[in-house]
């Protein structure tokens, strides 16, 4: 049974079609990558999967019962979908630990009232959240930055911090939007290991990435988008040998630089 099923998804912005009649299934427990040239609709797809955009047509089913379309992003998060962003969306006004503790929001319950009066359950919940956040930071090798302000950290660390924050949500599906963009080779290698580690811990990863080396090494399956629709789908080896993919990326006329 597929974890995520996308059917006949369509989205256009003022006459420009970003995603056209797209369908695919993400099986549970895999690293599933979506590739395609700039403007192929990858980020638009992510924004629909996370409830930020509403598709014009089509359906998104998560874990059989959860219908994503029509839900607010926070409701989608409650279904078990978390994500990172292409351009960092950190809480720069908060510490590293607090950033990740925000990720524990759905795993805790207390409200404004009990917080204001500092009822005993707040203390317990704070302790739990701190512990969960530390675990998520440890997975991403960020332990040593724990007391620092998010605003003072270098880019590569922030990329991992976003992942730690998303992991603290304990999602079933993690959407990663270009986690290796702007990273150097060492950092990219570390990112590859991290993605693998996340997948091995039982979280299905849906990855959008431009670094083809990383995609081919880390993915179990790859979906190729071109002008918002499906060009090919298969294992990395199949994709690398697919004539249409080679043509689209390198063939006849080179339309885009990879």
């Amino acid at each position, binding site marked *: 049974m597929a974890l995520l099923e996308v059917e006949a998804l369509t989205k256009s912005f003022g006459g420009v079609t970003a995603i056209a009649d797209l369908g695919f299934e993400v099986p549970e427990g895999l690293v599933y990558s979506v590739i395609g040239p700039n403007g192929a609709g990858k980020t638009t797809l992510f924004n629909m999967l*996370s*409830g*930020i955009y509403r598709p014009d047509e089509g359906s998104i089913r998560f874990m059989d019962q959860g219908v994503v379309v029509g839900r*607010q*992003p*926070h409701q989608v*998060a*409650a279904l078990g979908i*978390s*994500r990172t*962003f292409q351009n960092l*969306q*950190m*809480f*720069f*006004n*908060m510490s590293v630990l*607090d950033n990740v*503790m*925000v*990720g*524990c*929001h*759905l795993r*805790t319950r*207390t*409200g*404004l009232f009990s*917080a*204001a*009066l*500092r009822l005993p359950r*707040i203390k317990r*919940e*704070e302790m739990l*959240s701190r512990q969960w956040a530390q675990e998520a930071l440890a997975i991403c090798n960020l332990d040593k930055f724990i007391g620092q302000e998010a605003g003072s950290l270098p880019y590569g660390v922030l990329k991992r911090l976003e992942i730690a*924050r*998303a992991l603290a*949500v304990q999602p079933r599906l993690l959407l990663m939007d270009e986690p290796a963009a702007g990273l150097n080779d060492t950092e990219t290698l570390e990112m590859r290991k991290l993605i693998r580690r996340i997948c091995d811990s039982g979280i299905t990863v849906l990855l959008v990435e431009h670094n083809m080396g990383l995609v081919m090494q880390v993915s179990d399956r790859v979906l190729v988008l071109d002008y918002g629709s499906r060009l090919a789908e298969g294992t990395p080896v199949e994709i690398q040998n697919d004539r249409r993919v080679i043509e689209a990326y390198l063939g006849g006329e080179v339309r885009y630089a990879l």
Partner: protein
Amino acid sequence: MKRLTGLLLLAVILLILPFLFPDNYYVTVVGVTALLHAVLAVSLNLLMGYAGQISLGHAAFFGIGAYTSAILTTRYGWDPWAAIMAGLALTGLVSFLVSRPILRLKGHYLAMATLGLGIIINIILVQGEQLTGGPDGLGGIPTLSLFGWAIDTDLRWYWAMGATMLGVVWLALNIIDSRSGRALRALHGSEVAAEMMGINTTAAKTGVFVLAALIASLAGALFCHQQSFISPDSFSFFFSIELVTMVVLGGMASTYGAVFGALILTFLPELLVVFEDFEVMIFGAILMLMMIFLPQGLFVGLQSFALRWLSRRRAAALHTAGD
């Protein structure tokens, strides 16, 4: 409890001041106003400093609290405490109803909408003469009594307002240091990321807006019973701006900063009276200089300055020991 050291320090200072300076105008008269302003600034800071939602109409809720209590006690003979509760209920209702449409807006648009709200409430206070007394104001408001103990002297008001201020600071510190507080700071940092972490940002904004309004309303009720006379001037657009200035001056997203800003902005004009005609000019110049040299706010700026100085001293001490 390291978390509440600052609060304890504040309590001790408030406790000893009247004994150090008995019957001092600056402690029991200006001081009470400063404490009232601190309550308002701390509440506005929850909304503006932490959640990042600017409000140029905070005086409106201050006014609703004050006028509800004043009208119910003077015209209908209500018990002051019941009147205060009614004021809180009305403020809660009004702030909840306006919060949904208003908090959809961001940045300048939110500023304009809250500004509009403040002006509308002020116009109602001026125009509703039968009820509010119009521009002439409303007098003869009874004072409060607590367990048979009438709050009827300046010093007693100082204790009452001081306790309220400490209570509100305690609430604010508790909130910021919790799941709900992190949600507020998170939506300030990035609304889309906060949503993706499962935070219902609309509900969180509404919650903090209503809470800030309720605290302002309570402050208004205390103000009217303390003053025994109120007029719409105290709840005008200019007072809303003054509250924003207190928050910014002390340092956004710092509860103690808001208290500090309120104290400075209340005492400074009093002390500058000696300059007579130049008072306003010097006041403005001081504010400008503060913002130029400590743009992150007076309290926050001085705090980081002190921390840097301490760590440098420690480093120097280590260096000498090494030699």
